[in-house]
């Protein structure tokens, strides 16, 4: 960049070619450096001892990867060299291009290194048996196949079960939190004195970290905790007895609980018929508790933009409160509903903190999530380190999230456009 800036004073034509070449080299060198940093080589003190040992290792194991990066770097370099060549004679456009990319440079450098480079690396190792300590061996699609082997081998069901769990989780949490958030927002969106006070009080619990909330709920969920206590009190009022539940260690499933009184027994081999476990639903409740106020604020912001004349007109036409809600509020909230549902789905599919802290995936794997398994396999919490396998599962998760948000976009936003 500094080289280019120095050229300013000279006659534009002579500097044009030079500027294009400098641009190409600059982009090529930066991208290759990022590629080198992210090259799939073994780690360890021996390789990382000096730049020379590292480069030797890159040469030995990461040539295909560096080749792909080089092609990318050449293409991008050429595109930008051409753009620079074109704008160079015009002083203002040249100035704008230099300043534009100068302003963007911190963002671009960090994102290219820590997002793009890292993803290229992850994609590459998802086809290898990478474990940091040895050079990656190409294993083709076997990591992806391994993720789904639970279909044929019930002892390896972890990843399948984690997907099953997050489907339930996502379905229940997103539905409940979106509905409750809309109801709360509508309840608050009326002229009243203490509106700001209620908003603040409602939202306060949501600003604390998920770790704090999870610890608090782990305590409330104890067999001797307040949740059991309040439920016992509540049922006592109804004249019934409440059997204390060990909320965070109860594998009984929702469907199982419903069918058991009818004498139906679900064998443990058919775990997928049991539905979400009590533990898993307890985690869902906790999650809903903290996300509803956040989404409520989004809906409130949207409701404040609604023209009150619409409601007045509807009231004159004789529409009651429910009809106004159905025919005016809901359609107008549609874009925000879409956003809340998409954000909710993306968030719930990645649930990690609560599982890591409170359940570790148990009991009987009923609270396993893909993010937790990815973390577990990548760090070797259970058995050997399997970074390649973890990367493959991460890409499967990413594709699933992408598909789901795409479907939601199609179905909810028939008429409305988000952007």
């Amino acid at each position, binding site marked *: 960049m500094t080289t280019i800036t120095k050229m300013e004073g000279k006659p534009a034509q002579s500097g044009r070619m030079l500027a294009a070449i400098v641009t190409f080299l600059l982009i090529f060198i930066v991208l290759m450096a990022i590629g080198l*940093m*992210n090259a799939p080589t073994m780690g360890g003190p021996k390789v990382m001892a000096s730049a020379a040992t590292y480069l030797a290792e890159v040469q030995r194991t990461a040539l295909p990867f560096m080749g792909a990066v080089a092609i990318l770097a050449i293409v991008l370099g050429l595109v*930008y060299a051409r753009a620079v060549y074109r*704008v160079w004679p015009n002083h203002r*456009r040249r100035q*704008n291009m230099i300043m*534009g990319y100068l*302003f*963007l440079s911190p*963002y*671009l450098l*960090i*994102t290219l290194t*820590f997002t793009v*480079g*890292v*993803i290229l*690396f*992850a994609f590459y*190792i998802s086809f290898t048996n990478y474990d940091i300590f040895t050079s990656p061996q190409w294993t083709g699609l076997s990591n992806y196949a391994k993720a789904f082997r639970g279909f044929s081998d019930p002892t390896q069901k972890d990843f399948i079960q984690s997907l099953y769990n997050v489907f339930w989780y996502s379905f229940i949490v997103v539905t409940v939190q979106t509905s409750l958030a809309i109801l709360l927002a509508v309840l608050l969106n*009326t002229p*009243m004195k203490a509106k700001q006070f*209620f908003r*603040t*009080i409602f939202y*306060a619990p949501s*600003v*604390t970290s998920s*770790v*704090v909330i999870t*610890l*608090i709920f*782990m*305590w*409330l969920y104890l067999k*001797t905790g307040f949740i059991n*206590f309040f439920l016992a009190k509540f049922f006592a009022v109804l004249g019934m007895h409440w059997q204390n539940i060990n909320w965070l260690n109860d594998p009984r499933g929702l469907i199982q609980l419903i069918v058991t009184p009818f004498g139906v027994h679900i064998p443990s081999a058919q775990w997928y018929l049991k539905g979400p476990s009590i533990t898993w639903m307890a985690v869902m409740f906790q999650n809903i*508790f903290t996300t509803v106020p956040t989404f409520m*604020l*989004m809906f*409130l*912001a*949207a409701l404040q*933009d609604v023209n009150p*004349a619409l409601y007045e007109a509807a009231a*004159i036409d004789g529409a009651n409160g429910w009809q106004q809600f159905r025919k005016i509020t809901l359609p107008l909230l549609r874009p*925000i509903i879409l956003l*809340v549902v998409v954000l909710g789905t993306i968030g719930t599919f*990645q649930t990690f903190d609560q599982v*890591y*802290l409170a359940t570790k995936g148990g009991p009987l794997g009923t609270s396993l999530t893909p*993010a937790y398994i*990815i973390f577990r396999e990548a*760090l070797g919490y259970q058995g050997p380190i399997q*970074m390649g396998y973890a*990367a493959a599962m*991460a890409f499967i*998760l*990413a594709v699933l*999230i992408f598909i789901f948000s795409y479907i939601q976009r199609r179905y909810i936003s028939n008429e409305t456009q988000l952007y």
Partner: protein
Amino acid sequence: MAVKTETLKQVGTQPRQKPLSYTVGKILRYVLLIAIGLILIMPFILTAIGTFKTDAEITAFPPKFLPGIWHVENWVKVWTTDIGQGGTFPRWLFNTAFLAVTIATLEVIFCSMAAYAFARIEFPGRDAVFAFMLGTLMIPSAVTIIPAYVLMTKLHLINTFWSLIIPGAVNAGSIFILTQFFKAIPKDLEEAAVIDGATNMEIYRNVILPLARPALLTVFILQFQAAWNNFMQPLLYLNTPNKYVLNVALSIFQQQFKAQWNLTLVGAMVNAIPILILFFIFSKYFQEGVAYTGIKG
């Protein structure tokens, strides 16, 4: 006009009916709102009181609402706990605050620069880069976090604060919010500066930044909160007790003092209180931040 007179007429024709149902509805609404508010803050109230209970009281059944004696020494005990290798609560509090302030500050600087380029400068490739940035918003963190960990080990950044500061210094969501805000600033405000021959740097610093102060503060608050509450990355990157942040320390603290819920809850409150104080001071900006992501994200 017709609508207005009709409304007036309607109100005028039912002078007795309306006030009663209106008052009842109003009272019901307040009762409901207070009940919801109580449910939402109840866990925090129970926790705050629980921190003063003894080991036995905190897991006794049926639980008592108030402790027999208020054991203030629980707080002292936690505050002075030393798990070795420099792992103390004041240290963790400092680490967390330092990281949150540093990351949020850098983000405001770098993201506002990028947003200025997107909103105000015209150059080849701008729209493509912007689209690329929106695309990165879709990537789940599970994909990047493990390979980023490998990159950090290679760069010898593991167990340093740089591992959190560098990737945290930019954020596509913040850039998006600021770009929208900058675009909404009327162009004629900077025209005088342009005529005077001001450079982009001068316009950015002397015109845009002062006008965008509320948006910058909102982004700062949002990212401060995000950094304070971050768990997965510090859990991966920081591994000696003197480097822990509160969230990571708490997860280890809870495992060490499994039976002593009163102490763990004190730890949770130490983590929650600073961010809650900040929230009650800057509550407007916290709430605006959420609304921003809602309307514009």
